[in-house]
């Protein structure tokens, strides 16, 4: 099972996280941002939440074809 590296909790099993959505590739209208989901096989930028842990919201960039996670960034940062 895939693992994601939560910035607070470290590497955790995928089942602790909840997928929210894939972001569209570039900027666009409100309609495009809400509905368009053009899937790129090599690069997917996604929002996940660590619901069974610290509840941090994460931006995860990964390669869906190979399953590798390219980067994981905390959304929101420190206030």
């Amino acid at each position, binding site marked *: 099972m895939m693992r994601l590296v939560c910035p607070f909790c470290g590497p955790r099993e995928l089942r602790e996280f909840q997928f929210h959505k894939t972001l569209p590739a570039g900027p666009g209208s409100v*309609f495009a941002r809400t*509905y368009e989901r053009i899937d790129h096989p090599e690069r997917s930028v996604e929002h996940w939440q660590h619901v069974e842990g610290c509840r941090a*919201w994460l931006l995860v960039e990964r390669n869906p074809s190979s399953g590798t996670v390219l980067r994981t960034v905390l*959304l929101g940062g420190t206030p």
Partner: protein
Amino acid sequence: MRRGTRVSAGTIRFQFDGREYCGQPGDTAASALLANGVCHFGRSVKYRRLRGLLTAGPEEPNALFTSGRYPAVIPNVAAPQLILRDGLDLRSQNRWPTLGLDVASLLQAGGGFFGAGFYYKTFIWPRWRSYEPLIRRLAGLGAAPGACELAPPRVEHLSCDVLIAGAGAAGLAAARSAVRAGARVVLCEREPRCGGELEFEVGSIEGQPALAWVAATLAELAARGARVLTDTALVGGTGGQLVLHGEPGGLPGANTLYRVRPRAFIIAMGSIERPIAFVDNDRPGVMLVGAAERYLARYGVRVGREAVLFANHDRMYAAAARLVAGGIRVNALIDTRGDLSGMAGATAAQRDALERAGTRCLTAHAVVAVEGGRRIRAVRVTQLAGNGAGVGAETRIDCDVLLHSGGWSPCVQAGLQEGGLREYAAALGAFLAAAQPPWRALAGAANGQLELAAALMDGHAAGSGAAQHAGHAVHEREAAPVGRGDETPRLEPFWRSPAAPRLEKRQFVDLQNDVTVADLRLALAEGFTDIEHVKRYTTLGIGTEQGATSAVLGAAILAEFKGEPPGAVGTFRARMPFAPVSLQSLAGLRVGCAWRIARRTPLDGWHAAHGGVLESSGSWMRPRYFRANGAEPFAAAVAEARRVRASGGIADGSTLGKIEVAGADAAAFLDSMYLTKASTIKVGRSKYMVNLREDGIVLDDGLVLRLAPERFLATTSSGHADHMLSHFEHYRDTDWSGRRVTLTDVTEAWAVIAVAGPRSRTTLENVLGAQWRGALANLGHMDFSAGQFQDHDLKVLRASFSGELAYELHCRPGIALALWEALIAGGLAPYGLDALDILRVEKGYLVSSELNGETTPHDLNMGALVALGNPCLGRDLLDRPGFHEPARPRLVGLRACDGRAKFLAGAQLTTPAAPTRPAGYVTSSVWSPALGEWIGLALVARQLGEDAPLMARDPLRSAADTPVRIVPPVHFDPGGARMKS
């Protein structure tokens, strides 16, 4: 007493097909029955042919037993894996009434009827449905249990440096080199004993007998802290986590599911022997060479008295010599290879032993047929011409067991996942796994190294490589163990004996599913050329053995028919699980309340003790009604609702979702999250608010209370708090408006009691005491006041979900029961969910039936709120033209035209102009005591007005249609005078 590596002295009694047999401790059901002279172990699925054992492992296609008595049966247990225990009650499968006399086997006579794809071509006239009951009785493998009395399995999570699957020569060598490099090793072995083929292959390693080396290596592994799991098979895994399943004894009962995260993984799972296809190769008494060796070495069982061996490689000579030494007479050795004469493939010692035993050797010959229906009596053999065709007359050789082998197929399934590629190795006539990721390797027979010395070196190298990958340094001087066993078998691929075309339908390729050579030819003729299509059309390899004995054979025969090399045809995709796993093991501990938690409020005990009928509502247990008010739900709910309007009642609202929103940006944040502004709420007041999704659809509704200038309490629908919390956190963290906001789910920190009805205020004044009198008197509609009850925090909010004068008491869970009982003592009685539903429908209040994920605020008559123009989430997409079309739904109230008829939620609403195209549907419906008739709420097309003639149609639940009319959604007290009094 038999002697073997796995059996010890003693007696175990068990039953098979109603007869009692004895075996020894360590025996499997297969070995014990063989020792008792049993040769019939079941019948095949389709043709119901009598079958014996083919193998000595879990890949067994024929001998699948049912253990136990209905309803707690366990079907499809492979006999060679089932360790005997006292009192075992086993039955063969696929036969009725008995194994010896099976009525359905009469269908055998129509052999050609049930070829591949027969169900597309037969049982059609006059109606295929009429054949269904018969086919259902005959089809299937084993009978499903009716009850399960097993204890839940253990679940273990492990991480290690190196995981090695398979503890044969290569696996043990790999484990040893890895631990010597300092790696943490987990070694799993699906058999009860380690050693693999070393159990019967007589060899020596590092100067000692092979089994002594196995014991010494296991001792060293234990001393260095490696974990060795026997009776544990690799079943699958992805993403760096592998799953092992431990099932000691071969029956579920003490299972363990392991989830392992290794840094490196070695597949040393050996290889599985392949059969050859010849006419009637499924008769009882036809077995694989390796099976006979295993039964002899492990259990001391001789599978027959006179054997004929038939193979295409050198290993059969070593096997024959061992079988002769073990007391089985070998009448003949049939070698398909033509370039050798005499026993050129044997070593000198083996040749001597066999010649002394009087064994004939026929090279360039093949077994073409088997004589004997219930048990093999003899084989018929012909000479092979260069092109594989038979030449000359057939020779008949007596025997009571035929042992054959077409070679070995390495167990590469685990190496074909996540990028591994199949590669055909012509020398082996089998497929290897190539293109492995850096953390995974195959070793030993699984890697095509069939000879002991090579397997040991291969394992040693893989172990060192894995340890290095895991970050440990490996000493260069560490040498591989040197061993000497059977020579590398020189093999010439041989897949099927020559046969007349009409006999091809008795050359079996997949014994478990009765797939024959004729079926493969038929599939190809009908246009199924891809191996995946052939698999599905013929059912090749879809049984419990999943192609272990049949996949490569089937692919090679298909390749022969297509005129392609087997590498071009390939085999069908290897899928997890690699070994059968019970669903119970996969479920692990997630059963019962660990699977579906039942959340209970602080008042749950009181409800249960006082006749409250509790039902799950989402994850919460809530009282639907109280039995004191009526024996059945309808009457009780009506009585409770009536009493609330007449005098008063209390309800447990603790399941209400509550989220505290605090911080400098809290007000601005809530403004952006709700349709209307929260920043305009004064401290001490609350407001009914609605959330939108980003696409403009209504997400949820609730009250927002302002506790302090920078502190709010947002309530959500029951069971929605988790979702709304994530929703808020997401938008806070994506900078919707200011990030100085803390969000806390306080659903379980506050119990909520709704007090509703004309007597609610006076009862509260009595219960809460003098210090609350002034606050209660001054409390306007939607105001709240904070104070204490018996030294505990209490908030009293004046809000109503029933349309009566009502209050919501928010108190700490610890004091909830005392407060509730005080209210009961004060003269109020409880009401449940059903009554709550009646009251809120009478007032047109909304719940999830109306907030169903498809409605916009416009649909729900909130246009005025939208017009206030608060720039919130969802605003942008709310104004699109599609949301204003005439067919768009609108929330309305409904009454029956004749004032008495019933209509239910879910009924479709149609107009006479379009009687089959619904213009809407009923979302809620209750019988209203206040109005004396059925009332409801519905979503109907916007263009329909109050004079529209509507019919409520509910064909599944009611025979007649009900004429209904549209009314305003607030059925009772439209002005709200009662709650604002």
